[in-house]
């Protein structure tokens, strides 16, 4: 994974880059994080990453302040009021995880009109004056098939575990998987179930469909469902297929056990909550006067056979594998979009 570095390495690169990276231009700038929700482990990890990385940046004098604000309730009107308050408080940039892609456009426009840089990530906004750091869910689905094509040159039957029906993310990932299968015609999706991104639901759904399926070579997933699928397969006398994981702690733990026991090989892909720090550095670069395209794409956090242990160690029990981004990573993402 090109973006994945250990914290130590990124810190080292950051220090090395410091003398010639143009941070003089932003040393008096203040950046605010406007966040709409903090009620799950992903968001908590996102806020912790923000504090860790921006705290260091403030100490190093790269920016003057980087304060995080979370609305008390996940409501559009409240976040709009929060953004207006941030405008009044005179922040130079607002990094935004939005409650609604459209509902905040009025407030975002007001921020832009006040000369404030607005960078939205994860929950992006459609207002043209804002920057967007979006997740390419389609590619996340497609990359799984790509990986499988490398592993299984003969192809075979796939079982697809989808997410929550009717949610845009589920449609995107699934569309990516189906496009990948079209590209690599040796694969065939033999069955498809909804696992709702939850291990227990996935286990029940897979156990239910398994008796009706032919031999399954691999399971493509959306994250949060790999462990449940593995449990369902383990309960039968079928051979364990390649199950693509989603960076959750239980998934990585199970993978590690299998790897140690019988050399089980797979990969794991998801979005790191540390994407908030990527948005922070992008905002800093924009404030620094760098020409940044309005639409950027979040790199995935991919875990492979050789960096499994290291990632598992850094993942909290019950949490998601995380990575904090550096200024260098942000530059790389910006250059990739140019």
């Amino acid at each position, binding site marked *: 994974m090109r973006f994945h570095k250990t914290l130590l390495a990124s810190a080292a690169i950051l220090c090395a880059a410091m003398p010639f990276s143009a941070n003089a231009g932003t040393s008096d700038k203040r950046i605010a994080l406007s966040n709409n929700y903090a009620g799950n482990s992903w968001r908590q990890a996102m806020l912790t990453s923000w504090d860790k990385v921006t705290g260091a940046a403030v100490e190093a004098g790269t920016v003057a302040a980087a*304060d995080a604000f979370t609305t008390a309730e996940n409501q559009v009107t409240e976040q709009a*009021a929060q953004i*207006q308050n941030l405008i009044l408080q005179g922040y130079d940039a607002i990094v935004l995880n939005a409650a609604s892609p*459209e509902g905040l456009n009025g407030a975002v426009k007001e921020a832009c009109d006040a000369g404030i840089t607005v960078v939205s990530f994860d929950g992006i906004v459609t207002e043209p004056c804002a920057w967007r750091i979006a997740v390419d869910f389609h590619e996340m689905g497609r990359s799984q098939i790509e990986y499988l094509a490398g592993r299984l040159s003969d192809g075979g039957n796939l079982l697809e575990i989808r997410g929550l029906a009717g949610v845009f993310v589920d449609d995107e990932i699934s569309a990516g998987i189906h496009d990948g299968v079209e590209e690599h015609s040796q694969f065939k999706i033999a069955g498809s179930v909804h696992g709702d991104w939850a291990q227990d639901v996935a286990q029940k759904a897979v156990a239910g469909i398994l008796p009706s399926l032919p031999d399954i070579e691999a399971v493509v997933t959306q994250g949060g469902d790999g462990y449940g699928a593995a449990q369902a397969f383990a309960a039968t006398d079928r051979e364990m297929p390649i199950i693509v994981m989603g960076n959750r702690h239980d998934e990585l733990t199970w993978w590690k056990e299998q790897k140690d026991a019988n050399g089980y090989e797979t990969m794991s892909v998801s979005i790191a909550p540390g994407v908030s720090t990527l948005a922070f550095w992008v905002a800093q670069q924009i404030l620094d006067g760098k020409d940044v395209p309005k639409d950027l794409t979040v790199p995935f956090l991919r875990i492979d056979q050789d960096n499994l242990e290291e990632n598992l160690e850094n993942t909290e029990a019950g949490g998601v594998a995380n990575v904090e981004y550096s200024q260098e990573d942000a530059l790389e993402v910006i250059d990739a979009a140019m």
Partner: protein
Amino acid sequence: MNLRPSSDTIRLIVPALSLASLLAAVFWLQPRAMSYIGLNLLFNLAVPIALATIAQMLIMAVNNLDLSMGAFVSFVACVAATFLYDSPLLGVPILVAAVAAYALLGVVIHLRNLPSIVVTLGMSFIWTGLAVLLLPAPGGHAPEWARWLMTAKPPLMPMAIVASILIALLAHFIVMRSSFGVLVRGVGGNERSVERAGWSALAARAGAYGLAGAFAVAAGIALVGLTTSADANIALRYTLLSIAGVILGGGEFVGGRVSPIGAVIGALTLTLAGSFLSFLRISPDWQIGAQGAILIIVLALRLFLNRIENRERRR
């Protein structure tokens, strides 16, 4: 000429004082807010809340309570962002029908003697359902004129302040100065005596509900004018905010005792309280609690003044 302030004026003093002291605190914390743009940013989201509060006040004036206010404003916002933008010829009748539905609700509640809380709670699901049908995913566009109205920059005073004053004056005129307003408050005060005097309490209640619907429609359009697009859940908070605004502004749950100017001030105070806490940098975990604390302090102050008022009267 009596120089002693009337009880209505005393009722207005607490909300006005709490707004003034909150405003002073905000200015002290954030001097940047003390400007044309600053005031507009502080208060523009209060305009739809003020309209919804007036709507809630009209319903409370006839001793009822509307728990569907937030859902209804969300529904109107969705209509405004879709039909009113694409085809006003279809959008306007829908909104008129929505107002008529409100009046009809008043009729049904009156004739069948139903508890308004239960009926409006049920209606809230209907409004939310319709809103989701209209806009399953957030989107839509604000009608040009709504956007223009909410972003207009009148001279001297920002739009948010101008709009608040206009809303307060209009509501004051309707509720306190017109014979219809007297009738509505009379129904809240003593329904039977109003009927004995030959007035129709049914018409008064239907009128109050219809007018409330009209103000709520205005709230939804104003909200879309600010946000530029809608969402089926955009105004769910307005139910409780509008009730709190009425009470904060000197209104009572029963007895037809309401104050339109106070209600607008109450809505502004509630909005400002949020900004104040955010400027104080209170952690979000505590903010809801702190908001509640501000409410309780203001209400306690009012209770205290009420007691003084009663003592004066007894003398």
